[in-house]
């Protein structure tokens, strides 16, 4: 097994999301901990109507984040398409949720809070963490038998705005009202069960809490106003920005962050020799389904033979960043694969020595050629043609 932190190995840069993911993770863990979710009693209370803080925290967090997204998107500060929304699989979500709920009640943690609980010194939390790891691995054994079910009732990205044909902020405002009613209800229910059982009682919504909800609701209303005034004007200019990338930069990206890219070959497949492709490429003809549904936060790099071909209109529907390899495969062949050799050498001569080293290392990693004095292990070959992604969301 590799070292826990690939960054310590030095040979390979960690995922580009390393810093933000760890910072967001720390804040996430702290937010769960101050919610009291490091302690099973605070979670179990939810299901015996004592302290319904699971519902209160979750619902408050959801409307806060949703109101924030509504404001940011309706003012044009954030593009909704750039946020990953998990695909909907109706029956698997229903069944998976129910199964997880049963486990949740038994251990009185969910997978995320069990990590926080273990971090707070609770042995039952640590044991739950091990259970989740074992259960996830065990699912791998179950998977071949339930594969049909697992992929059934697939709806793609299905959201309530799409379902009801209503703008996102309108539904957020509705949700905030629903949350407020639910909170009043939980405070009532807690009151009914208070003192009857030996568990701590939940915290009531204070005046401050009501004010905070009122502020959120106002934000939602503001977002609705923006949606109808500002957003139409913003959407009148829909320029499809298509950037470009050089062969060297693409090679570097393929080595450093292969998972952040889709590389799409739009050349006529039959006209191209099998070996003459950029590693990790998907042929345009092999893409199944909608290009716009492929978006998973990745950048799509498109290449033709000489970089001059028009993009197929289907490709321009891709929601994420779209870039074209300048010079096309010809540039890749000469600058990275070093064929013909003279072109490669000529390209090298225009660079300073530091750049030369990097390019030589990249050249070596894609051709397998020996490199003269590369900066030690700066680059590790990172190129097998990736199997089509079938990661089950992974809670991601």
């Amino acid at each position, binding site marked *: 097994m590799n070292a826990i932190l690939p960054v310590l190995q030095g040979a390979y840069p960690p995922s580009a999301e390393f810093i933000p993911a760890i910072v967001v993770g720390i804040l996430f863990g702290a937010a769960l901990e101050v919610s009291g979710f490091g302690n099973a009693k605070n979670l179990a209370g939810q299901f015996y109507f004592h302290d319904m803080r699971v519902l209160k925290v979750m619902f408050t967090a959801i409307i806060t984040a949703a109101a924030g997204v509504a404001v940011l998107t309706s003012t044009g500060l954030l593009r909704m398409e750039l946020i990953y929304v998990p695909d909907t699989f109706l029956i698997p979500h229903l069944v998976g949720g129910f199964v997880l709920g049963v486990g949740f009640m038994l251990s009185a943690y969910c997978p995320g809070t069990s990590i926080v609980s273990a971090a707070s010194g609770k042995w039952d939390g640590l044991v739950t963490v091990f259970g989740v790891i074992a259960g996830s691995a065990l699912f791998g054994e179950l998977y071949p038998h339930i594969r049909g079910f697992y992929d059934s009732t697939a*709806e793609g990205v299905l959201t309530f705005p799409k379902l009801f044909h209503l703008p996102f902020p309108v539904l957020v405002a509705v949700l905030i009202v629903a949350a407020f009613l639910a909170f009043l209800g939980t405070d009532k229910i807690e009151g009914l069960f208070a003192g009857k059982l030996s568990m701590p009682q939940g915290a009531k919504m204070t005046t401050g809490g009501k004010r905070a909800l009122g502020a959120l609701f106002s934000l939602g209303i503001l977002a609705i106003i923006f949606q109808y005034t500002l957003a139409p004007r913003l959407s009148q200019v829909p320029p499809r920005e298509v950037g470009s990338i050089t062969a060297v930069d693409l090679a570097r990206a393929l080595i450093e962050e292969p998972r952040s890219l889709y590389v799409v070959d739009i050349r006529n497949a039959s006209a191209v020799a099998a070996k003459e492709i950029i590693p990790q490429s998907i042929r345009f003809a092999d893409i199944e389904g909608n290009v716009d549904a492929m978006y998973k936060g990745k950048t799509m790099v498109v290449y033709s033979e000489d970089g001059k071909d028009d993009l197929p209109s289907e490709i321009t529907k891709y929601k994420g960043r779209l870039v074209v390899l300048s010079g096309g495969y010809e540039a890749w062949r000469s600058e990275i694969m070093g064929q013909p050799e003279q072109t490669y050498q000529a390209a090298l001569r225009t660079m300073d020595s530091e750049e030369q080293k990097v390019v030589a290392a990249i050249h070596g990693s894609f051709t397998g050629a020996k490199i003269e004095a590369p900066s030690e292990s700066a680059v590790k070959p990172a190129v097998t043609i990736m199997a089509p992604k079938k990661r089950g969301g992974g*809670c991601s």
Partner: protein
Amino acid sequence: MKKPWNPYLAGVGLGLVLLLSYVWLGHGFGASGASTIIGAIGLKSIFPAHVTAKGAYLAHYFTGDGTPLNDWIIFMALGTFIGGFLSSLLGGRHKPEIVRGPHTTATKRLFLALAGGLIMGIGARIGRGCTSGQALSGGALLSVGSWIFMMAVFAGAYCTAYFVRKEWL
């Protein structure tokens, strides 16, 4: 043992962190995905051929180069542990113990915790996420599947609550 925050205040905090995650990372939280990667690595060290066999569920973790640990969700889980640890220390809630109800034994509590974790691991994979990645992160984006999942989680837990009431009450 200090009390946790008012749940509404804590909820606003959690929501703002989720918003930060959307804006900065382009996606919400994740937790059980990290367990899957660790589980896959563990299982591979025992049955290498079985795990990487064609069509096996966990095989895709090993198709790329480099370690599957080089994934945002691993870093986020690491952060979650660090954040939980620091917050419990600062909040005076850090205490090595086995949390259990007044009428149950430590062994029974640990056994149920393990069983619950195991079942959650399976459920999270069937539902393609857990309370973090599916319910919270998809829920705030108004994903239909995430809301179905979230309702089902509460339903599953409430249906089970009666049978394990002796664990807590």
